[in-house]
């Protein structure tokens, strides 16, 4: 007789595509044995059951302690596409947890996943890139991706992959290039990113601009950005309708015009009016980046002259609720008022 009390257990799982789970602590070891079984059906059913279990952080911890990652690594190169797809899905859900991420980095799953970049099945590739994306958000993960020499293949894939996967690749690249940028520059990343800046999708544009931001935070990146004449392209993105794109492009400009060549090319491309319009908006997220960019431009004599007229705009932002914007506004005013 059904009672209105909701039980503490999940409803009984009678999915025939999933393997039966043993009770309690025996569940995961039995699944591990089933994963190594020679029959295809057993492996598939075990993987399906594992996918559901891995949403629980405690199960992730137990799985990694039991050495699941080694059996999963061998399954990554299986011929059957369902097996591969489910394995990558399991790994990507594991990567959502902090313990899972650490375990994945430690057991060298990144190098095992490099072979899947050219997989014919879309979902496998998407899951692989999701794993890279999650792992790259950690500093050790970004280091691992760089050490596995993944940057040149990723830059190449940026041209040919589907849009969703491109977004994931761009996120991965932005996190990895924060650490080191020479490999990407050697692989011609800037040219590819220049194309992506004019992509119809707003997400790709903003992510590409974010990658350029990370590239130009390094010295050699700045030189490359100036050489490839990306500053006019970034300036045109400042007038984009999407706020995300504006934020990213303002940030990229902020870093790129630290060098004198960048500054002069920005002044030559009339950077000040769009930046001022960004600053003037009250709710724009790009305010901080725009104020910083204008500070940089104010160090040039022409810039200072132009910005002296707009000094009161900066005065307004001294009372901004965000502390960072206040500080930036103070610094900007100090730079504008500086006399040699």
């Amino acid at each position: 007789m059904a009672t209105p009390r909701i039980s503490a257990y999940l409803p009984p799982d009678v999915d025939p595509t999933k393997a039966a789970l043993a009770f309690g602590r025996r569940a995961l070891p039995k699944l591990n044995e089933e994963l190594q079984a020679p029959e295809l059906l057993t492996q598939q059913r075990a993987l399906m059951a594992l996918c559901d279990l891995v949403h629980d952080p405690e199960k992730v911890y137990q799985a990694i302690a039991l050495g699941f990652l080694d059996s999963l690594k061998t399954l990554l190169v299986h011929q059957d596409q369902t097996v591969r797809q489910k394995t990558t899905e399991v790994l990507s859900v594991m990567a959502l947890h902090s313990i899972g991420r650490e375990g994945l980095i430690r057991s060298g799953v990144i190098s095992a996943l490099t072979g899947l970049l050219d997989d014919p099945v879309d979902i496998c590739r998407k899951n692989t890139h999701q794993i890279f994306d999650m792992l790259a958000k950690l500093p050790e993960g970004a280091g691992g991706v760089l050490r596995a020499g993944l940057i040149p293949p990723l830059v190449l894939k940026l041209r040919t992959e589907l849009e969703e996967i491109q977004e994931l690749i761009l996120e991965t690249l932005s996190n990895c290039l924060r650490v080191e940028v020479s490999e990407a520059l050697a692989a011609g990343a800037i040219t590819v990113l220049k194309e992506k800046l004019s992509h119809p999708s707003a997400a790709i544009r903003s992510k590409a601009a974010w990658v350029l931001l990370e590239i130009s935070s390094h010295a050699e990146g700045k030189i490359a950005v100036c050489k490839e004449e990306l500053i006019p392209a970034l300036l045109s993105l400042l007038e984009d309708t999407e706020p995300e794109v504006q934020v990213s492009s303002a940030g990229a400009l902020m870093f790129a015009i630290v060098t004198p060549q960048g500054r002069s090319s920005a002044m030559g491309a009339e950077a000040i009016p769009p930046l001022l319009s960004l600053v003037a908006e009250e709710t724009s997220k790009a305010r901080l980046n725009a104020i910083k960019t204008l500070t940089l431009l104010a160090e040039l004599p022409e810039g200072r002259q132009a910005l002296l007229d707009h000094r009161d705009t900066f005065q307004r932002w001294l009372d901004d609720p965000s502390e960072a914007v206040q500080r930036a506004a103070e610094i900007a005013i100090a730079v504008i008022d500086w006399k040699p």
Partner: protein
Amino acid sequence: MVPTRAPELTAPADLPYSFYSQPRSLGSRPKYREQSNAAEKEKGPVHYCNIMIDPRVVRGNVLSVRHPPQSTEPSTLEVKRQRRAQKQGLARRLTQEQIRTGTPEPVEGREHVYVQTELYLEEISDRVIEVDGECQTDEFLDRPPTPLFIPAKTGKDVATQIEEGELFDFDIEVKPILEVLVGKTVEQALLEVMEEEELAQLWSHQRAFAELRNAEFAELQRLEEQDRRIREEKERRRLEHLEKLRKQKETAEKIAARAFAQRYLADLIPSVFNNLHESGFFYDPIERDIETEFLPWLMSEVEETLQKKVLGRMMLDSLIRMVVEKRLDEFSRPPPSDQTEVPAEEPRETGAASLVSDEADAADQPVEEKEETDQPVDED
């Protein structure tokens, strides 16, 4: 009979037992006696026997007469009692047999025969009547299909009809089921949504942090750049200043050196001219001409003349010598006396000297000087 032994070993009156030994649980008896030694040596765990199968335990009706078990060394009292009991039993049996008599002996001429007196006579023999019988099954036939089993109708037929709303109210009853179903679904959905939300929250947090970090980083780079420019500017100016100082010093040195050199070389030209003049670079051309051409020619002519003179003198010398030698030969052939030779030689010498002096008068003054110098040379 209650066996009573040494009264001092009996239990005191307050305890319920009054037997010889206190009750104790018995250990199991080993099956083979040889093992007892081994058991003593090992001192293994004590196994208590199962009293149900232990032969030493008395079982059965507690109210019946029971003889105690024969001990190995019965005492004399025990033996006597046993024999007495046996005799009494035997006597009792005999008396009972005598009371019940058997059938009397047959009368003479008659024989007793055993006859059956039941209703049906039966043959009594030791041998049992046996009959052999056999049977054989038929060849296998297929099992016929089971006929449809329709149980016999039992009981009475009764019909009933359930109107709507009589058994249960669907809407009320289905509520808890629906609640469970919907609740579970929504719970699962909420879990998934929470997971995604958690992640989205984390990423937005990270993004905000990344923005702040980027802003600060840009500021840092700007200040670095500024600092670099200022330092470069300072360095350039310093180098310029050093260059200026260096040039100044160089110029001062140049001036000093020039002044010194000028003063040093002020009297250079007069001294140079003096030296040249002294060494004869400024010459009078006529004088030079006379010196270079005329005088050498003169000297050579003089030399020629002198050589002629010398030649002449040599000729003369040779002539004189020849003459003298001839004279010597002439005078040496017949050597008249030594005195004539000596005065011949002296006049010869004086004659040579006078010839020579005659010759000398014809020469010039310088030639005489030269001859005089020649003579001492000859004499020497």
